[in-house]
């Protein structure tokens, strides 16, 4: 298993964002984590990527325990977070070189890898410009390959196509399909149903911090007797808007957004 969670829980004060999640994600699959706003997707990903300590429970990622062997987990994973992990004043090469060095890469090897990745997302012509001047699409393409510098076996992508134009969405989705080559496991969060349906081998639907169901997109549709994943989703998570009292989060958390 690429990822195994055992009763993974995160509470903020007395609000439970992720509630005893048990989850198994297989090696080499693309796993779609689907859930409405505030469902707990990002919180779950942050715990699995060692950025946040769970309140309860634990998980194994790439065969390593996130609490006891966090550095081994970190070497095995790549993360495309909700926010860009790029320094706006630095150019593409400087950004990638910096993160590459954190993974112990150096010299010619690093240079070659950086050039290769920049070409992969067709940014050769822009590599010397500060990325603050890039369009959202260009930035996100670079942001995705930033997570690939050390060839991670497991890749987490938190809403990778949010705020992109159709051309960029197409490019990014094709890129994600490409990235599974060589047996890489991909965990993708989204609330765009067609994206989950197009990319995922299996999807897990999460709401109020709980995993409601895990199955293939086809399996889910036939089980509930509906024609598309959006109907499955609304059937399971309800049709009400997601404004809840609990969403009045404390101001301290604002820095996180």
């Amino acid at each position, binding site marked *: 298993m690429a990822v195994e969670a055992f009763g993974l829980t995160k509470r903020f004060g007395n609000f439970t964002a992720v509630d005893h999640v048990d989850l198994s994600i297989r090696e080499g699959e693309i796993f779609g984590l689907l859930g409405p706003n505030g469902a707990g997707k990002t919180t779950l990903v942050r715990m699995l990527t*060692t950025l946040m300590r769970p309140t309860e429970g634990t998980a194994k990622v790439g065969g390593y325990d996130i609490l006891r062997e966090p550095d081994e987990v970190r070497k095995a994973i790549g993360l495309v*977070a909700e926010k860009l992990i790029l320094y706006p004043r630095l150019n593409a090469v400087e950004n990638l070189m910096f993160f590459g*060095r954190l*993974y112990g890469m150096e010299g010619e090897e690093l240079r070659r890898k950086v050039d290769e990745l920049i070409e992969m997302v067709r940014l050769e012509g822009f590599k010397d410009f500060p990325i603050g001047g890039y369009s959202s699409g260009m930035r996100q393409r670079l942001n995705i390959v930033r997570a690939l510098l050390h060839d991670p076996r497991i890749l987490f992508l938190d809403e990778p196509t949010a705020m992109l134009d159709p051309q960029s969405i197409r490019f990014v989705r094709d890129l994600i399909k490409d990235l599974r080559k060589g047996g890489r496991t991909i965990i993708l969060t989204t609330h765009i149903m067609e994206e989950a349906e197009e990319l995922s081998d299996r999807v897990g639907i999460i709401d109020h911090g709980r995993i409601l169901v895990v199955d293939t997109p086809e399996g889910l549709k036939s089980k509930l007797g509906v024609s598309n994943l959006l109907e499955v989703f609304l059937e399971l998570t309800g049709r009400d808007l997601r404004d809840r009292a609990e969403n009045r989060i404390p101001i301290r958390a604002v820095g996180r957004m």
Partner: protein
Amino acid sequence: MGFKRIAYVTMVMAHKDLLDFWKAKMLVVAFTLFPIVMMAIFGYMFPSITSANPYAGKFSSPYGRLPIAIVNEDGGRAGEEIADRFAQLASSTGLFEVRDFASLEAAKERMTEGKLKGVLVIPQGFTESLSSGRQAILTIIVDDTNPQAASSIFGQASSLVRIISEGVAASRISGLGAGADPMALLEPIGLERRPFVRGSATTFQFLAPGFMALTVTLGTLSGLAATISREKEQGTLDGIMVSPVPRYTVVVSKVLAQTVRGMIQSFIILAVSMLFFGVRVYGSPLLMVLTMFLAVLSFSGIGIIITAISGEQETAMTSLMLINMPMTFLSNVVFPIEQLPWWLQVVGKSLPLYYSADALRKIIVLNAQIHHIAPDLIVLALYSLLTLSAAIPIFVRSVSR
């Protein structure tokens, strides 16, 4: 993970911080201008007496020419002469700007408005006292709202009066004939004051080291708070935290980058002080570097703790103001700490700036060697050690909440 790798990733992160800083051109401009503007202001606020003045080194006023009034209530010849002589001395020493006032009431009125700093009164019967051989007394009323300025005005006025008084006495004695040495009669034992410091020490010479320490400290605190909270908010900190580098190296690298920035700024200050304000360095530059390094380090822990607790940038910056303001005024940089009530002295002496300013001043002005400033350096080192060892776990916890 080996020491070499840890040192390497720390350098990589510090280098990135400096590169990121260097790329923000406007920031670099402001960063360079800040110490220059600061020193220019302080330099002109506390001018040195130039050598064109015959009284150079003998009289100096940290306040420049202060407006004072002469009120002559006497009406006699001697009163008139004293008033003229005082005005003349005041202008040749550059100490006071003298204005004549007809009545004490009018002068007091102006002083209340803050337009005058003192009033010299030549009382009624002054000429008579003088000519009848009694001691004639002049009175000076000073604006007490600034006690430091007030005592300095009194001191300077006294020295001018002494010169006039000696002159009067000397002419009287020589009037006695007998070829006596008037100075020998007047002052059988003379006391000449020689400056402790070589060359002509100026007030600014004493102030510049303090401002160096202050600027570096303020720069470090706001720089650390800004870069840490910006990385947290923009999300790049996650990129570092998700890579296999020890958490504490992030803190160490930030401190390192800030130290480099702080040292650059402090040397800009020193250069400006030396080039434009005649400050001379008598001590070892190497010792200065060491002191500046400890000055930055001693505040890094505090900066990190405040940033970690604050969570986001504006809160962090505002919380820092809470420390910055008192520190500026309590740490013996702008005002002598002896002027403060005892409990404020305790507060001032519990801030590391007091020690870095003190050590730097001793190096620059007194050519202090390492054993002279060892107590200061030890306090700074202990401060650094204690605050940083508290700051690192607080920082690590704050980013994995």
